[in-house]
């Protein structure tokens, strides 16, 4: 039982920390939220991706051949911890780097890898992922966007929703139904779609706080070249799940993000109203509850990674990872509620007012807490499906 990271991983941490202390400007930290309505902020973030890429810090988990460092799982973990704690902005192509690129590396052609990956890393191209649909949310595998083969092309018709940066993207990793008669998981394929093709319309989707980070994307008789297929025909579900299984070290973001938010909240409590909130034992108890859970979340994530690295059971690794997401959502919502309750009118403005609203998404996006619990109950605890 050892919680300490190996010396070479700590060396990696020190190197990254040093680099961030030189290159991460206040202006960049301030642009942490992808303020897509603001062209200047967007270009600033794009510039950050290039700075990171030039120094080899943009995609550390990628093999060196594509501009990465071939970082070990623990190095990836430390990378996420350090960039989050330093308050570095999330890369514009975060979904591309973590979720789409691994699928391209596994299933793509050599030419796809060499042309697409470096531009993705530098944010020269913005990527989006077309998964959810109006009628396929929690039940993702029931997606209905169709692709029908016509000569050298697929003809795509349908609609996607909750597509991050869909209205800014040059490329879309699109999941489509190619065999309507097969069982639902077996009739899906994955296409790499050029978003400039005729028949694609992306409309910004305004979320409850007024942001437009997401889009609805409509496909009307879009002719996609057949070589855009990623992975075998009708094997899209496997492509999607490969993508997700590369994510484990990313769990570090869950606790690192909450550590940062908790620190910021304590700082704001200390400055607001002469620090009066921090004299209130009820506030202290609620802060204590959150700090406690953040620490336990950290260990839960470490356990999931340790199980993967050191031959623990796959079920244990999966169970911890799945719980971690649920716990993260609960912590975030508790933190947002505490900020709002204690800061009063001030809590309804600025970042805490915004977080009070956007923290609703923590238990919805990427699979609702309820679906997550169903999966855990059945897959980990062995309770029967109906």
């Amino acid at each position: 039982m050892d919680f300490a990271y190996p010396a070479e991983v700590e060396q990696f941490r020190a190197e990254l920390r040093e680099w961030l202390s030189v290159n991460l400007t206040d202006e960049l930290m301030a642009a942490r939220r992808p303020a897509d309505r603001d062209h200047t902020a967007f270009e600033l973030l794009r510039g950050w991706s290039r700075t990171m890429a030039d120094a080899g810090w943009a995609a550390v988990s990628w093999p060196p051949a594509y501009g990465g460092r071939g970082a070990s799982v623990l190095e990836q973990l430390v990378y996420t911890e350090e960039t989050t704690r330093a308050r570095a902005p999330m890369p514009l192509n975060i979904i591309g780097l973590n979720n789409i690129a691994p699928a391209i590396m596994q299933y793509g052609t050599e030419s796809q890898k060499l042309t697409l990956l470096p531009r993705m890393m530098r944010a020269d191209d913005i990527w989006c992922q077309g998964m959810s649909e109006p009628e396929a949310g929690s039940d993702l595998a029931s997606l209905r966007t169709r692709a029908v083969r016509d000569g050298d092309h697929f003809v795509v018709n349908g609609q996607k929703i909750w597509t991050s940066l869909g209205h800014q993207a040059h490329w879309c990793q699109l999941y489509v139904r190619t065999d309507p008669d097969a069982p639902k998981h077996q009739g899906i394929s994955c296409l790499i779609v050029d978003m400039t093709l005729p028949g694609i319309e992306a409309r910004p989707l305004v979320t409850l706080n007024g942001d437009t980070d997401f889009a609805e994307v409509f496909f009307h008789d879009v002719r996609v070249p057949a070589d855009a297929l990623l992975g075998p025909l009708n094997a899209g579900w496997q492509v999607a799940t490969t993508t997700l299984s590369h994510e484990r070290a990313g769990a570090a973001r869950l606790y690192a993000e909450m550590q940062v938010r908790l620190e910021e909240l304590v700082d704001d409590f200390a400055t607001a109203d002469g620090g009066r909130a921090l004299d209130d034992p009820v506030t202290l108890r609620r802060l204590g509850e959150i700090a406690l859970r953040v620490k336990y979340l950290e260990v839960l994530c470490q356990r999931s990674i340790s199980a993967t690295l050191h031959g623990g059971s796959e079920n244990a690794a999966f169970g911890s990872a799945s719980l971690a997401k649920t716990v993260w959502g609960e912590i975030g919502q508790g933190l947002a509620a505490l900020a709002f309750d204690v800061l009063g009118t001030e809590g309804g403005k600025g970042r805490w007012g915004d977080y009070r609203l956007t923290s609703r998404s923590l238990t919805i996006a990427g699979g609702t807490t309820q679906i997550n619990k169903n999966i855990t109950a059945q897959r980990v605890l062995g309770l029967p499906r109906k």
Partner: protein
Amino acid sequence: MNLELTDEQVALRDTTRRFLAEKAPISGHVRELLDDPTGVDQAVWRGLADLGTTGLLVPEEYGGAGMTMVEAGIVAEELGAALHPGPWLSSAVAATRALTRIGDNETAGKILAGIADGTTIATVGFLDFGNTASVVEAAGEGDGVALRGEIAAVPDAAAADVLLVLAPDAVGAGLFAISTDTSGVSVLPERGIDQTRKRFRVTLDDAPAHRLATAPPDAVAAVIDDVLIANAADALGAARAVMTMAIEYAKVRRQFGQVIGSFQAIQHLCVDMFETVELARSGVIHALWASDAHGTQGDERHLAAVRAKAFAGRLAAVGDTAIQVFGGIGYTWEHDAHLYLKRLLSWSGLLGGPDEYLTEIGARLAKRGLR
């Protein structure tokens, strides 16, 4: 970073689990001893000693295994899962850590050797040290020293041969050993919510004592942290066991023509228990590691112990939820669920309720924020 158990640790866990299932089951052992003030069945205690569990933390020079708190936590978890009513935590953890952290001398060595081979049961009477309800004074010097005073909530005093107490004397705070069979020691049961835990009010009336060492406050605090952390491992075992029982029940109990575990409402209750147990496990393994790895950096260990206590209220809810899953049968005396709930509640109440500890964590954070 490696948080997996070694093969030896897995073997220790499995051997302890098997021994308790065979020799100390709830029906036939735990229930028989609910009203017994010692909680000891000689054959079971001998068996635990023969497995090496009473000497896990005793240094090898005194006949122990010289292992770490991680191994102690593994055994504590199994004892908690089996609702073990004996004085293992008092003797093998509390007294042993007091003797190794504070009283490192020849007499301490003799007591440690007895603890390791199972012939001596020891306990400590200073878990609430600093609390004005428990005051002990020392009079006399050298071999003629005698103690006078009252100590509340001493665990396992009726089973113990040796009681370790702290008392201020001319030199500072001393750690004293008292033989419980000498005159001047009286032991009165304090009935708590949990009958598998034996606690007593101890009155010392010029009880002859042996001064082992001067007790530095840091070392005393470290022993109390050790005890809290081992107790947390015991409670984790209890929570895990009652959760597992409830989940297995949900897989076989049929209503409306189907097993109740197929209902989403029941599944979510089960996952809630699982979430709490796994968070508790995260806290416990970190605390066990911190109590050894950070032996000199007391702050991380202390914070880990405080966190474990702060989480105890949530952990007790696993007992509540399990009873909800069992439904009516879980509300009966005959069913074991209430014994688990009580074990969890007694941990939650030990040395102050969770709110106090949650507030302490918040206050530490606030101090950092205001700096």
